[in-house]
């Protein structure tokens, strides 16, 4: 009897396995390992939870960083809140949360009926990067300034479309305007499936008016409206799980690179090698690191990403970036003269607007936000979709998993928190650059990344995007209203996978979407 029973059981197992080979990630729930959030993964707090394995002191530091993240900065001088002044004078937003609502994505700006365009204001979580087109740069060195982008004369590498009241010479006619006004409109197109289903896609288009460097009548002479200037819209990104991504070893990422497509699958995967201000500050002879963060993997660490945004997006200087972005431009010089040289970026003692402590706390916060747990794991459609995700080769770029480094590990020049180490994580990104085709191209180089390349976005938490912010969009400029639209924009190296997705029957397409939404 016993032997018979065992044989029967064994036979059933064998049959089941033969019938349904399953991707290894199919039933994984804890996408962040021990750094996964529970009890917050079905609601709008899904991206805002501290890692559950933090120590008591680490949790205190995290929560202090959270307060900083939500701090709104103000115009200098603010005698009542001197620790909060120094905003701008030109900027994109006044606080971190406006581009990363509830630690997620910003709201996509929509147009009212009858409106053809809208001015980017305090509602916007998107801005424009810009630079002079100077061709490819593939090997960073001291001779080529480490492949840094060349800023536009008098402006820099980011267009600051908002300002404090007196930011411009013409502030009485143009209060609160930054370097220029940016307007958003949309172009629409339609994609049709073989079965007749259609999807409308929209692409944001930006126009620029009132640049500060010319009179209104001579707008076209502005430095930012010349033919060799390249623009790239950038939406805010979710900021959970970043510390875990920092601890994926460089070797594991580079092992996935296939720059010459040796395996002939049509997918290359290339690292971005970027200037590292932390290394430069530490007098490292080669201040270049693997890029990990940003839409084109243009920053090497959470520290650089966060503090560059603090200085760049808000105009708050900090020890890593002690000078205003617009230092030595005519706009800044005239602003200082007009306002009595109050907001130079440093105080009389040479202290930056944000202290070292503030900087460290806000960076730590971004490194230690937990990854939301998966949902609906046992749903039949989700299980089927998990297999399709491999079948159509989404995993060619959206690499399911890594194990984070152990032992001594430094990020942004500091020792990594222990809670991040040795975790089996499922970010669904290979952390590499891929050519995604002309449809998504911004035609702007970013260090060694070219104008058609984007870093593979992590997919963990993507299913909670709308729960966290119902108005959020996907892709670098928020153009995709949902996951399906985002898939349909994939081109270039992902063209094959997109076509394979489109060739699926409707029910299977839905299953694949259901899987992605379970993440």
């Amino acid at each position, binding site marked *: 009897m016993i*032997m018979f029973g*065992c044989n029967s059981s064994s036979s059933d197992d064998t049959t089941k396995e033969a019938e349904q080979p399953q991707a290894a990630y199919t039933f994984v729930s804890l996408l962040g390992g021990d750094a996964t959030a529970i009890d917050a993964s079905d609601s709008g707090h899904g991206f805002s939870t501290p890692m559950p394995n933090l120590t008591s002191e680490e949790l205190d530091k995290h929560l202090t960083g959270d307060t900083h993240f939500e701090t709104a900065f103000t115009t200098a001088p603010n005698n009542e809140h001197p620790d909060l002044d120094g905003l701008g004078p030109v900027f994109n937003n006044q606080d971190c949360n406006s581009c990363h609502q509830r630690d997620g994505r910003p709201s996509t700006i929509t147009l009212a009926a009858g409106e053809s365009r809208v001015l980017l204001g305090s509602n916007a979580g998107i801005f424009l990067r810009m630079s002079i087109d100077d061709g490819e740069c593939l090997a960073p060195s001291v001779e080529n300034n480490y492949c840094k982008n060349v800023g536009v004369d008098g402006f820099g590498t980011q267009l600051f479309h908002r300002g404090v009241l007196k930011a411009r010479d013409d502030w009485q006619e143009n209060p609160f305007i930054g370097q220029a006004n940016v307007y958003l409109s949309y172009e629409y197109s339609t994609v049709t499936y073989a079965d007749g289903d259609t999807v409308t896609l929209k692409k944001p288009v930006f126009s620029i008016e009132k640049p500060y460097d010319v009179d209104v009548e001579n707008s076209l002479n502005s430095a930012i409206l010349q033919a060799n200037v390249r623009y790239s819209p950038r939406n805010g990104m979710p900021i959970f799980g970043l510390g875990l991504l920092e601890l994926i070893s460089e070797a594991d990422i580079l092992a996935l690179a296939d720059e010459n497509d040796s395996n002939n699958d049509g997918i290359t995967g290339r690292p971005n090698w970027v200037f590292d201000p932390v290394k430069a500050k530490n007098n490292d002879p080669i201040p270049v690191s693997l890029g990990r963060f940003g839409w084109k993997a243009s920053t090497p660490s959470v520290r650089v990403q966060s503090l560059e945004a603090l200085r760049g997006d808000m105009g708050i200087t900090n020890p890593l970036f002690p000078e205003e972005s617009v230092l030595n431009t005519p706009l800044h010089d005239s602003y200082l003269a007009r306002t009595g040289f109050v907001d130079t970026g440093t105080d009389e003692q040479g202290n930056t607007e944000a202290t070292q402590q503030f900087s460290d706390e806000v960076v730590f916060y971004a490194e230690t936000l937990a990854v939301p747990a998966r949902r609906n794991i046992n749903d039949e459609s989700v299980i089927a979709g998990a297999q399709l995700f491999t079948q159509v080769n989404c995993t060619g770029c959206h690499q399911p998993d890594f194990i984070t480094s152990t032992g001594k590990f430094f990020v942004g020049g500091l020792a990594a928190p222990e809670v991040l180490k040795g975790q089996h994580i499922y970010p669904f990104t290979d952390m590499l650059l891929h050519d995604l085709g002309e449809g998504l191209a911004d035609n702007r180089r970013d260090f060694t990344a070219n104008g058609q390349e984007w870093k593979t976005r992590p997919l963990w938490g993507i299913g909670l995007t709308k729960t966290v912010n119902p108005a959020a969009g996907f892709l670098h400029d928020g153009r995709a209203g949902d996951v399906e639209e985002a898939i349909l924009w994939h081109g270039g190296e992902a063209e094959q996978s997109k076509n394979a997705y489109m060739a699926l029957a409707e029910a299977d397409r839905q299953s694949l979407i259901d899987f992605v939404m379970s993440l």
Partner: protein
Amino acid sequence: MIFKKSLLAAAISALVLTACGGSSSDAETPTVVETNFSFEATEMITNLTNDVIVAGYQNLNDGAADFLLATQNLVNTPTDKNLALAQQAWKDVRVPWEQGESHIFGPVDALSIDPHLDTWPLNTSDLEALLASQASFSADELKTFNDDVQGFHTMEFLLFGDGVEDNEKSIDEMTTLESEYLSAAAEVFKTYTQSLLDAWIVANDPNDANSPAYKDLLLTTNNDIYASQLGVVEELINGMIGIIDEVGNGKIAEPFGSNIDNIDTSKVESQYSWNSLADFTDNIRGVQNVYRGEFSGQADKAGIIDFVNAADADLATRVDTEIMDAIAAIEAIAGESDLPFRQAINDADARVRIQAAIDALSTLQTSFENDVLTKLQDWQQ
């Protein structure tokens, strides 16, 4: 040959026995204590959505209309009486806003309405420069200004003054231009409270008439925002935790400091009107509204307390008591001399009462985080 066969047979037999043994062992595992519970959440969610959240935003919008009218009366007839009425209208509209902070998710964040209405700190530098440089203000123009010269605290500053010595501005201290700015700001404010209400009951994207009312996303789940009622209940519980944490650890503890030598009056929210304690009380009353399922004084309706009661009746009662204790502790801060919070943090006796309030809020937060929130895992839907 016989020996070899016997050895192989013995090995197979051992494997089989091992496997069977394991299975048998599993069967003998003692039964786990049952902690799962059932609760039909539809009535609770419907009630909280319609009669607490949407009703709260209706109150906010109505209060904004009353406040706008009061400011217009002040512009047209600048008297101390009309100033006092406008000040009171500001305090009145503050109530539904602060109570609404217990459910600060959805359109209030997605449409950036929170920063439009309640950005803190105020940007006095630019505000004073505006008043010194322009001859008039309109709502359309103000709407293009930065959030830190709009909203509650801008209007508070214009109505009450800087709050350092007193919170009683007289009409002689208010310029015509200030009252015009105030009324323009109140008009902008009203457009945002209307947008917020409409997002909940008409269309969550004001620019897309086909987008669903946000309330319908809570009432009928299995959508992109809430896959199931679990998400809605989790949202509501985490919303309460969020404001309890913010009041105890932020709004009260930050100005309070580690001791009397480390207070920071600049961090006192609503410091111009001296309305801070009313704000904090209303924040926790907002928690009570969601927990009980109705506004104070109304007939009993389904709330989170009913969900908790289905899991653990003692816990449900304990949390309700802790909410009342927290409200009482905040109200007690003022003491017999009715100290405003801005002054209380600098008074040794009041500080004892403030610490008691912080402790009560901490106890409440712990109960929600460790006891209430974790019940979601045991809820059998």
